[in-house]
């Protein structure tokens, strides 16, 4: 378990509750984008299969399971 940090550089903001909530929101948004690129089957999104087909080669070459 990390005790007191020995990192010398202070090149990041201190972790506060506000930062955590912002970070959570950002990660949720990023996961939504990831979902659209890599996991959307066209059933949930309103794009139908269009986005799925458009990004199909990328999906396979990025190693994500697909049809």
């Amino acid at each position: 378990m990390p005790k007191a940090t020995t990192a010398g550089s202070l090149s990041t903001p201190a972790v506060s509750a506000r930062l955590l909530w912002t970070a959570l929101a950002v990660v949720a948004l990023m996961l939504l984008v990831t979902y659209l690129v890599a996991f959307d089957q066209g059933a949930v999104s309103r794009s139908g299969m269009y986005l799925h087909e458009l990004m199909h080669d990328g999906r396979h070459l990025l190693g994500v399971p697909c049809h």
Partner: protein
Amino acid sequence: MPLSTGPSAPTYGALLLRGLLAGLVAGLLAGLFAFTFGEPKVDAAIAVEEAASQAALPAESSAAQEEPLVSRDGQKGGLFLATGLYGIALGGIFATGYTLLRRRLRTPSDVRAAWSLAGAALLGIVGIPYVKYPPNPPAVGDPGTINQRTISYLAIVVIGLVAVWAAVVAQRTQPTEWRRGAAAVLGFVVVVVIGYALLPNINEVPSTFPPDLLWSFRLTSLGTQVVLWTVLGLAFGALVARTPAPRPETVAAA
């Protein structure tokens, strides 16, 4: 904590912006790699599928082949959209992880911190899933199992990240250098072995599919992801190294 945040520390927003930028660059370069080396294999896999379906249903059924929603050329352009967006998303998550974990990574070097995080991500998100569920070209999978395959894949990504975390936690319990190394490997291997054993095996590649094409596709898929994470780590490291001009007190405190 004796050290306080100086005005030179960039905000989360500034770090996030760097992550998104590094991710975009990484995604586009991964797309270039995939376009150059991967697309010929995707085309070949589709040709194999078409030859098989022609042989199975000759004559009139060829007219029944539906018009594709997106043409092959459109899909080749869409490849860059896919890797670009994927890179941006991973860059944003990477920058968030960096922001939250930076003070727990025991190195004074921001660049080294960025590299180790990218290395950990490459191992946990790419390496560990790759061995359990090697990627397949289009026209190989069974659509009926897509949900099960997706859940298993996401589970192995989480297990890969847990394994990296277990390695770090385990090595920090040990006093000497060699024991730290051994503990890290042990913690990592234990989690991976349990994960591999619990998750189902999936092997849907038909025996008629050319094995050399399958493996060259899998290697280019691995290469695409290695390019993505390597460039992401290098670019983010370069961007954080360039930024805050360290104040003299901060350096002295270090």
